[in-house]
């Protein structure tokens, strides 16, 4: 097992945008009766989510967040040498959304721009790539834009996923600065679990056709979805989490010479509170150290870790702070990191 470590590079500013439309989960009763919905919502403890309208893409949320970030921090656009866009809900299959955002944001054509398609763990992967490229010494500033419109991915008629997912976008500014200490990343993949969370159709293995868009009853409970919509095997995903995540975090802490008490906050992927309470118990972390937003935004995939920092840690990131980040999901992939911050500037969340 190997770790990535970086010195003197870090995130200096963060911003986020969410759609203005709030879905109250108790009233999300178009396809299921109120009593059934209440049972599900009481159990998953996700009360609200934000849904983008049909004209709004992940890139629009990220554009709004990036514009706010640039304005709030007086960033000279010509200093941005790298733009990474992270999403599994891009604008088009081609070209890459990052390149369109380079133009929309008025960044120079010398900006390196590319997409990372990965899912829930991807913000940590994006950080490691940005840190790595900035460490080469020539780049001044990097923008990581991470956005998802997962509300468009899952069937509202499949109760196993209908109440879980929401939309959001973030922008992170990455810079070199000697005041940052060392960051450590553990990045992992297991494609043998590729079927646990999946959209089967719409790629080149199963191209879209009249058949793939047909809604079908998929199980004995009468849940309905098409092959173009997302599927999740919740109990095996949970099994994956309890098998891999505590182990990964413990090893990362041990091998980097850190302990949980050295970390000011532990920000976990926001899948549900059940998983995060499990991790807290297993790793002996006080719940005050674990900020949570899943109850108000749902699971926003890769956006959930930075969105939780913006939403919950504003005003708490002055001076030197050390965060443990851990995110896991579709792939399956999982990532843990110990990341130092110095006077992180957090913008107010904007609604689009």
């Amino acid at each position, binding site marked *: 097992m190997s770790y990535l470590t970086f010195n003197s590079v870090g995130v200096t500013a963060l911003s986020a945008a969410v759609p203005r439309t709030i879905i109250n989960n108790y009233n999300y009763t178009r396809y299921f009766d109120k009593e059934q919905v209440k049972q599900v919502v009481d159990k*998953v403890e996700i009360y609200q989510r934000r849904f983008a309208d049909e004209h709004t893409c992940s890139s629009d949320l990220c554009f709004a967040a990036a514009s706010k970030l640039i304005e709030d921090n007086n960033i000279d656009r010509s200093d941005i040498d790298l733009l990474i866009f992270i999403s599994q809900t891009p604008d088009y299959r081609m070209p890459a959304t990052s390149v369109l955002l380079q133009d929309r944001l008025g960044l120079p054509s010398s900006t390196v721009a590319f997409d990372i398609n990965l899912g829930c763990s991807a913000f940590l992967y994006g950080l490691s790539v940005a840190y790595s490229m900035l460490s080469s010494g020539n780049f001044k500033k990097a923008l990581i834009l991470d956005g998802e419109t997962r509300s468009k991915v899952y069937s509202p008629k499949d109760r196993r996923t209908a109440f879980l997912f929401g939309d959001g976008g973030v922008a992170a500014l990455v810079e070199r600065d000697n005041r940052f200490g060392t960051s450590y990343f553990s990045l992992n993949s297991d494609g043998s679990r590729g079927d646990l969370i999946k959209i089967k159709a719409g790629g080149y293995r199963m191209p879209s056709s009249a058949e793939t868009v047909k809604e079908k009853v998929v199980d004995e409970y009468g849940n309905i979805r098409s092959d173009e919509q997302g599927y999740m095997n919740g*109990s*095996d995903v*949970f*099994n994956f989490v309890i098998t891999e995540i505590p182990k990964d975090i413990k090893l990362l802490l041990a091998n980097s010479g850190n302990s949980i008490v050295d970390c000011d906050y532990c920000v976990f992927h926001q899948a549900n509170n059940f998983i995060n309470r499990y991790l807290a118990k297993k790793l002996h972390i006080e719940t005050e150290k674990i900020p949570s937003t899943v109850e108000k935004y749902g699971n926003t995939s890769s956006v959930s870790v930075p969105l939780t920092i913006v939403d919950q840690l504003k005003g708490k990131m002055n001076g030197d702070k050390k965060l443990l980040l851990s995110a896991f999901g579709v792939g399956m992939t999982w990532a843990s990191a110990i990341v130092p911050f110095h006077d992180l500037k957090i913008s107010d969340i904007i609604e689009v």
Partner: protein
Amino acid sequence: MELNDFIKKFAEQFEETAPEEIQASTEFKSLEEWSSLTSLSILAMVDDEYDVALKGDDIKNAVTVEDLFNKVASKA
């Protein structure tokens, strides 16, 4: 591991079902309170108490509490 102890810990994962309703022969998926989230609580309990990682299918294939006990015992 011991069956009665397993049954007790299994029963603790339920909030509304009385512990005496859960026996070795109980067909637990027919219990009123059973849901996919109870199933997650069971996975977490088995991991915590017995250091065994059950799969979703292990729960799906078990009918009675004793079936599941046997599955955990075979992996412990």
